[in-house]
């Protein structure tokens, strides 16, 4: 069991033929110098079906980690462990240890409310609340009691919208419904909503998959700016996107973490056969 998690570094790999590589072993360095999140031996089951198989990985401070892989490889499921969103799925069971600031967030005793304030999430499809633009952003700070009065709340809302690069576009219509904005604006509104509660980590689950290239470019720019203040984990289908926004990339295949490494290395010199096949477009 133990050698399953043993890291195989590139030197070892050179001495091995690719066919000998085991899918359950992760290639590359899963550890970082200054980890923000440490995931250890995470297993996720849907009923009896295993969706994530013994995955361990560190996520560094102010780093953008991209998780790529073919559909159904479990990258979204893994992402949803970081803020315990999997709790909402009845049949889903998560095992292992997941540390955020020394606290095991998978512990049953961990309260998900403060956790989700610390670990924000942006979903695949823009899902603004059917309320005004202002209320969308103000909702989080309101329920967490982050503003003492209306003036403070206004300030948080405006700052968040500015950080999400949306303020200029919506400043005259803060009271119009969030759902009336365009798709790209809606997604940036969701990002503003997430950063309004001042999280440490932002999880993004294919945030651009429902957007056109121009809106996508704006979000990618935004991710680049946000990395100054937040740790970002992004799941994406678009490899170019992963290459553009992330520093590290993790490749998943059928519930296994196949390879982790600096993004440029993964895309130029993948070490695992599966990774190579995927990024060269042989499947996915």
């Amino acid at each position, binding site marked *: 069991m133990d050698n399953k998690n043993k890291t195989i570094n590139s030197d070892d790999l050179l001495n091995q033929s690719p066919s000998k590589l085991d899918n359950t072993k992760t290639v590359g360095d899963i550890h970082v110098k200054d980890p923000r999140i440490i995931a250890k031996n995470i297993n996720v089951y849907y009923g009896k079906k295993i969706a994530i198989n013994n995955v361990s990985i560190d996520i560094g401070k102010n780093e953008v980690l991209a998780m790529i892989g073919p559909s159904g490889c479990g990258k979204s499921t893994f992402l949803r462990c970081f803020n315990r*969103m999997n709790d*909402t799925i009845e049949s889903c069971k998560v095992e292992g240890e997941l540390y955020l600031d020394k606290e095991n967030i998978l512990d049953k005793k961990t309260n*998900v409310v403060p956790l*989700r304030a610390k670990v924000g999430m942006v979903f695949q499809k823009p*899902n603004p609340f*059917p309320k005004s633009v202002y209320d969308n952003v103000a909702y*989080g700070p309101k329920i*967490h009691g982050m503003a003492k009065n209306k003036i403070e709340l206004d300030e948080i809302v405006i700052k968040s919208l500015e950080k999400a690069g949306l303020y200029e576009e919506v400043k005259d219509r803060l009271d119009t419904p969030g759902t009336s904005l365009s798709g790209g604006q809606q997604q940036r509104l969701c990002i503003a*909503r*997430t950063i309004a509660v001042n999280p440490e980590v932002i999880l993004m689950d294919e945030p651009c998959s429902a957007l056109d290239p121009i809106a996508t470019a704006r979000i990618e720019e935004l991710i680049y700016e946000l990395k100054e203040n937040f740790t970002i984990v992004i799941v994406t289908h678009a490899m170019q996107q992963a290459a553009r926004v992330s520093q590290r990339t993790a490749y998943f295949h059928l519930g296994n973490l196949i390879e982790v490494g600096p993004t440029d290395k993964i895309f130029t010199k993948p070490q695992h056969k599966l990774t190579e096949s995927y990024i060269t477009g042989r499947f996915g």
Partner: protein
Amino acid sequence: MNNLKLRLAKEKRFQLYGILSITLALTLLSVLFISIFSQGYTAFQETKIQLNINFEQNILDPKKTRDWDVIKKSNFNILIRNSLQELFPDVSDRNEKRKLKKIISTSGEYQLRNYIRNNIESIGTSKKIWLLADDDVDMLIKGHINRILPEEERRIDNTELAWIEILETKKLIKKFFNKTFFTSGDSAESEQSGILGALIGSLFAIGITLIISFPIGIATAIYLEEFAPKNNKFIDFVEVNINNLAAVPSIIFGLLGLAIFLNFFEMPRSAPLVGGMVLSLMTLPTIIISSRVSIKAVPPSIKEGALGVGASEIQAVFHHVVPVAVPGMLTGTIIGMARALGESAPLLVIGMVAFIVDIPQSVTDPATALPIQIYLWADTPERGFAERTSAAIIVLLIFLILMNSLAVYLRQRFEKDIN
């Protein structure tokens, strides 16, 4: 390409069937409406006869006490008789005189008593007062009795007809808007009967139904849909039984009410309180089912979004899911209420079918309901009640249409708020 032609023909045929069935439904509906309105519209008028009443001092208040307790005991019928005598001086026979008095409704004396009560200074003067005519006269004036028919086939004989015709030439008989119909309860005399008692009874019952079934129904729906453990045998059992309850015939709920509310808890008979409780048993499944459907229709992404920014389960449901589901919940509730308003079987069983003249003042007073009043009047042979039956149906239909329009309006308004 042959295939394409066939497909197009099929499409056309299907559309045709649709249009045909809608036309059929609309035709039947309009036949129903036309027949009810054509029979019922005359009930919105009542016939009155103007008499010159001499409020004689020595009949009403011989000792000039001006005390209402003394005055109210005097015989107001004499005033009517005297006035009719004045109008028709030729009538001298005792029987004829009695017959003459009968063209005025028996409510005439109460009408005069009420007038004096409000205008006590009128004693000693004479006033022209419109008194309610008897129902047979009313029917004749409205044309429901054919004057050309031979005397023995008519409810009004020749002498009475002659008097009425004299009144007509003197313009002392006239049709007015039927205020009585909207301001009184049931009565054995059709011209004195009204819908108000039944209407208030219905509104009380519906009010109780709403108070009981709306909160319970909505709470149940929210719990079952959002909080109840999934794949739990007990919850499944509850769900199946809610669906079963929706299919139970309403009379069974009435019998349940009779056995439990009346016989076991000894609650008042014929009371809208019990009626409302029984109706809420019947309405609950409707509200629960439609509310669950509308909660289910809320995109789960909205709830996920709320959970994602750190809302607790309860906050996510009540801040985001419920507001979106409200229009559907309201629609379901109002449709349930409309069904309850038109329901009669369970109310029959708990005794809301009694002949009740007084207008109920509270939910524990004996009362009838609109559909029951319709049933009672439809069962009465007099022509006057026949038109009142139709009129009561019109009132009931108007209330149903109002409620359904309210449902549509609320749905549209809330949907506008959301989008």
